[in-house]
């Protein structure tokens, strides 16, 4: 420092972690949500752009996707918010034991969701290379699947970490809290995509 320092305040008493918008990584996660949200939004715009070129959607002779796997997935995804909210609450209460238990639950739920998602691809009743309608349906489903998959991997890594001595670190509770926040993005972003894949091709047939 070339200028003489004039000390005005001691900050040693400040906390070394904080939740929500006071945390640095929270802003990083919000940034990535904005990026991924923009990508979802643009993919949705592309969907409507392609749809505007067709007299009917799904174009005959292709049948709209079967409802069962996608609806099952949606219901399960919505229900997953219950343990997800419990994790957030446990993390904010620094309750390591509950966080450990619930992360295992979320890991298993994520795995189950991935299995159901596999059946969804099979129920689309169109292949990606059949026509542009099939291409955009597959693109939306694949785009969302990457989010389920990456958050599931994230949750597995976090679950393992929380079962070490680091699980007792307050700062790791912030990681857990933010992982749960990201899961909310994953399920909220699914809802419009569910409508576009399963319902719009029925309504505009």
């Amino acid at each position, binding site marked *: 420092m070339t200028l*003489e320092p*004039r000390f005005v*305040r001691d900050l*040693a008493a400040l906390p070394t972690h904080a939740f929500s918008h006071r945390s640095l990584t929270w802003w990083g996660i919000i940034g990535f949500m904005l990026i991924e949200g923009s990508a979802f939004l643009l993919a949705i715009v592309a969907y409507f752009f392609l749809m505007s070129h067709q007299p009917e959607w799904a174009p005959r002779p292709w049948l709209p996707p079967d409802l069962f796997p996608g609806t099952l997935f949606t219901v399960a995804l919505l229900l997953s918010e219950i343990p997800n909210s419990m994790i957030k609450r446990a993390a904010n209460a620094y309750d390591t034991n509950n966080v450990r238990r619930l992360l295992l639950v979320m890991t298993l739920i994520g795995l189950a969701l991935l299995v159901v998602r596999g059946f969804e691809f099979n129920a689309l009743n169109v292949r990606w290379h059949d026509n542009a309608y099939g291409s955009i349906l597959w693109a939306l489903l694949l785009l969302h699947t990457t989010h389920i998959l990456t958050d599931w991997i994230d949750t597995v890594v976090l679950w393992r970490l929380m079962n070490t001595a680091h699980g007792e670190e307050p700062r790791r509770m912030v990681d857990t809290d933010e992982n749960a926040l990201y899961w909310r993005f994953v399920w909220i972003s699914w809802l419009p995509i569910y409508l576009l894949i399963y319902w719009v091709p029925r309504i505009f047939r």
Partner: protein
Amino acid sequence: MSSALEKAKAPPADVPRDGPGLSGPVLEARLARTWGRPRGLIGWLSSVDHKDIGRRYIVTALTFLALAGALALIMRLQLAKPENDLVGAARYNEIFTMHGTTMMFLFAVPVMQGVQIYLTPLMIGTRAMAFPRLTAVSFYLYLAGGCLLWVAFILNIAPDIGWFAYPPLSGPQYGVGKRPDIWAQMVTFTEVASLAAAVTLIATILKQRAPGMSLARMPLYVWTTLVTSLMVVFSMPAVALASSLLLSDRLVGTHFYNPAEGGDALLWQHLFWFFGHPEVYIIFLPATGFVSEIVATFSRRSIVFYPVVVLSVVATGILAFGLWVHHMFATGLPRVGYSFYTAASISVSIPTALQIFCWIATLWEGRPRLQVPLLYVIGFIITFVIGGLTGVMIAAVPLDLQLHDTYFIVAHFHYVLIGGAVFPLLGAITYWFPKFTGRMMSEKIGKLGFWMLFLGFQLAFFPMHVAGIYGMPRRVYTYPAGMGLEWPNLLSSLGSLVVALAVLLFVLNMVRSALGGRRAAANPWDGSSLEWATQSPPADYNFAHIPVVESRAPLWGSRDHLPVVHGLRVDDRELLLTTVMDAVPDVREPSAQPSPWPFISSVAISVMFIGSILSPWALVVGAIPATIAMAAWFWPKGPPELEPTIS
């Protein structure tokens, strides 16, 4: 009560901290140990110092500028006379594609982000970027994308589809071989790199500003960085999506851009230009930030109407998203579309004009010193105003339909991009050179270089307006004699040689000055912002104590003392987080230590991306090592310590 809760409520640990009892050389030695990086190649690859990464970004981007500039020279030599046969048609297609792609994706945006990565933490008074390892990954992926494109060029498989790669030319039917795939995957690399840097910059600016640096006191350059980073976040997903859809059309037979199966080539144009137009402002707005800083320092007064400049930058950032369709006037639009996008395109000139008036007013009110950085600013104002005016002209649909895809457009965008971004960039390099290297650039060579560049530029690009009005189309490798195109083209070619010499002179000046230039003090230009409060070049830890900001021009307020806060630990890397609006001290958070994992992750991601040019399964197989590397990056490397660390 759980152990985590007890720890959360525990008082600060007994670790060494900066303050009245630990200051001066003793503190600096300890901080240097804490914030330094290991020696050797591994240490170099492990660096998470924003100054290292910013410098690497800048040097790499300038290298790509030189390469793309060499291609421009080849094109100008080919076009110097009619029916020239120096370069054939196919090679010419590759050359203009490589020139445009390199300039836009590998030079213009990365160089701006490189300077932002270098300067932002210094200007806001912090010690590191918010996510230092992500910043490192950003650089490595950018480098990998650039190498992919240029190795392809050397191997004679370079893309030849223009820098905006319109299907069907780039699609599976006409874009045979792997050339378009290489282009599309280069886009993926650079977009991921750019998005990572943008998120890091946003978090850094919003959460790490020095105490007291409220948003209303933030340096104008930092404002432009914040706005452009937000623009990156909202615009770059469009091109990433567009190029992914293109790759999938080519690789797995989807039909997004295939009209025969319900797709539409115009979908590409919408997605591409929804990115491509904001991209122009992502390049231009940081340059306006350079101009604001240089004008203030060299006028020796703060920028007149600071709030107007800030609002102009924000308005430009928003309006930039409403203009993309003016690139598509020639595709045919509904009448209301023409009217709307013409109005929007003309209106974007208003905030930029406001900024220009504020700079002129500042120069008018101040005591300007006509040194090299300010010369570049004046060159910028003149050149950019000409480019802006031709922009207003071609915002009018009838004229645009006449001039579309002619050399008039080439002239226009070189005026706004070179005049609007490269001139301020060279001024900025000259201005911050002492901070980057600890030495001053030669003023005499700098002035000579400026005049050569300014005049050579006008000679090279002004005649292109004429060639365009005479009807010369872009992207043709030659033209017949007798159409009035000989003189404009010859003048342009001569001008391009002068520009090349001027750039060479600038580079020589940089090298010579970096090796043996006059040593620079901490604040050689008497600047007012915080980067000038630390030595040139800054130490690894940037600031020995975190400064406190009491006005918009902190260094002009007190000339001998700097108010600082203290109490940050010195035995490990720690940052001060402040509140978003008012920058009130809020949290002490650890900052990441150097790590080789970002580099290893980048290699794994690069293998995955490049493999996916050949087979979609590369994404599945390649994701496994990439995931493992990223988990290793995140995983703590030792037992918990007294206070949190990121090991």
